[in-house]
């Protein structure tokens, strides 16, 4: 069933994507469903669970961007995931070292229920959704990605955080053998990110376990990652092993590294330049390479990455140039 939430930014996918691309996308998802077992088995995160069942229940959401999707090849070969190296292709090259099974996520802090949970324990009670989101990197490039995931709010609610839980903090796995980029001391591992509780509860925030109808590729943050599309990409932490409900603003990685450049909020904001480059425009990465990509016109960056209607109320009365 197609559940359509009509939004201002919505356009029918058939209108915005070339028909060929659109059909290919559907075929992509279909083929992964048909050959689900074989395709999904390498993931194996849903131990003892016929994985195709979970993925065949993807609720098609019309949370869509008006742009063409970035190709699967593009999404999986151009990543910032410093756990595997600082080069854009390092994650594609080295992330096979990451073992995503078994995988547990520890829930801790100011909540009624805490403990260690498998991915299927976390995800199963919620319905999987496909969310097509724009991803705006702080480096002034962007993509459009069809994520598969569940609303973060549906997961948070189950653990019943108490009134002291003002923020939620996330941590990425630390394991130098699986993540060779962690041999670099540039970052004080683990990578930490966080949200204010109302941001985390916003319907746009999801925990994603796949993209393009497929299990999450390792280089994109397998097996489970955060996606907060109105914030710069680095807020959407990958390969999460710990989620804690906390009272104070978490000390997040990039904010600690360079507080003048990366704020805790890091909302996409064309009016607040990064000290070293403009944030007014962005290069849209379509996945195409060569001259086509070299001469693609830049596009204007939208306030809150075009999701103001959904999230601007969270920042009422806040000066986002001060709280950048």
């Amino acid at each position, binding site marked *: 069933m197609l559940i359509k939430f009509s939004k201002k930014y919505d356009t029918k996918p058939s209108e915005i994507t070339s028909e060929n691309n659109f059909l290919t996308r559907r075929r992509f998802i279909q083929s992964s469903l048909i050959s689900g077992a074989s395709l999904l088995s390498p993931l194996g995160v849903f131990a003892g669970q016929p994985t195709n069942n979970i993925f065949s229940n993807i609720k098609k959401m019309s949370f869509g961007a008006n742009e063409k999707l970035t190709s699967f090849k593009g999404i999986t070969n151009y990543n910032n995931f410093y756990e595997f190296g*600082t080069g854009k292709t390092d994650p594609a090259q080295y992330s096979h070292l990451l073992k995503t099974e078994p995988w547990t996520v520890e829930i801790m802090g100011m909540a009624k229920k805490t403990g260690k949970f498998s991915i299927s324990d976390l995800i199963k009670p919620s319905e999987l959704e496909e969310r097509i989101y724009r991803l705006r990197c702080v*480096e002034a490039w962007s993509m459009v990605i069809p994520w598969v995931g569940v609303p973060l709010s549906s997961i948070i609610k189950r653990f019943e955080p108490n009134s002291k839980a003002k923020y939620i903090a996330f941590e990425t796995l630390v394991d130098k053998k699986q993540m060779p980029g962690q041999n670099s001391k540039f970052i004080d591992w683990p990578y930490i990110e966080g949200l204010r509780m109302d941001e985390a509860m916003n319907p746009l925030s999801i925990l994603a376990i796949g993209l393009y109808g497929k299990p999450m590729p390792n280089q994109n943050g397998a097996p489970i990652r955060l996606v907060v599309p109105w914030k710069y990409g680095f807020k959407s932490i990958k390969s999460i092993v710990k989620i804690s409900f906390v009272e104070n603003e978490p000390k997040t990685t990039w904010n600690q590294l360079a507080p003048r450049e990366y704020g805790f909020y890091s909302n996409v904001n064309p009016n607040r330049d990064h000290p070293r480059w403009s944030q007014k425009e962005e290069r849209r990465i379509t996945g195409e390479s060569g001259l086509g990509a070299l001469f693609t*016109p830049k596009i204007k960056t939208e306030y809150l990455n075009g999701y103001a209607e959904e999230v601007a109320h969270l920042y009422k009365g806040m000066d986002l140039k001060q709280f950048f």
Partner: protein
Amino acid sequence: MAKKTRNIYKRLVFVVCLMPLAWLIFAILLDTIYQTQLMSVDPVQKFDRELGDWALIFIILSLSIRPIAELIKKKELIIYRKIFGLFGFFYVCLHLIAYIGLNLQFNMAGLLDDISKRNYITIGIIGFGLLIPMAATSSKKVIKYIGGRLWKKIHSLIYIISLLGVFHFFMMTRADFTRPTVYLIIILILLLYRLATKSKILGQRPLLRK
């Protein structure tokens, strides 16, 4: 060495110096035809970075020619200092063109904004500005016209320029400072060597004096 052989070497070096540019063009064409990702899915960034990197490499190469020639006692090598230096300037120009044309897409307001607000771009532009008099006074005719003393002064700018270039690199780097660090160390060694030799031979060669 015979003049003929030297000329062949010179031409060979010239062709080799063009190789990085040839590779970049070849790679982007290959990407266009076969959708390979030699220049990644963000070739704008890649072009900018590669050209900037080659500019620094050629400037450093140019700087290292004299010490190498002195150390291995091959005076004739000194001609390559000019070739590498001019290629450094050539790649700096391409780097600047890529930044203005491909990255800013000729958004001149954006350029002024960048130059005035962002220190690393200010520094980069100053470095480029200082390279112009050097490039302009590289031919033998001009050297004769302006005299060796002035030429020397102008061309000692290269130490400042190379440091500006490497600081420019440092300041734009988001993570992994290995490359700019290596470049800085090499430049500092070359600078120290120069200072040491200069103080030793002061008086013997009046041209080196101020």
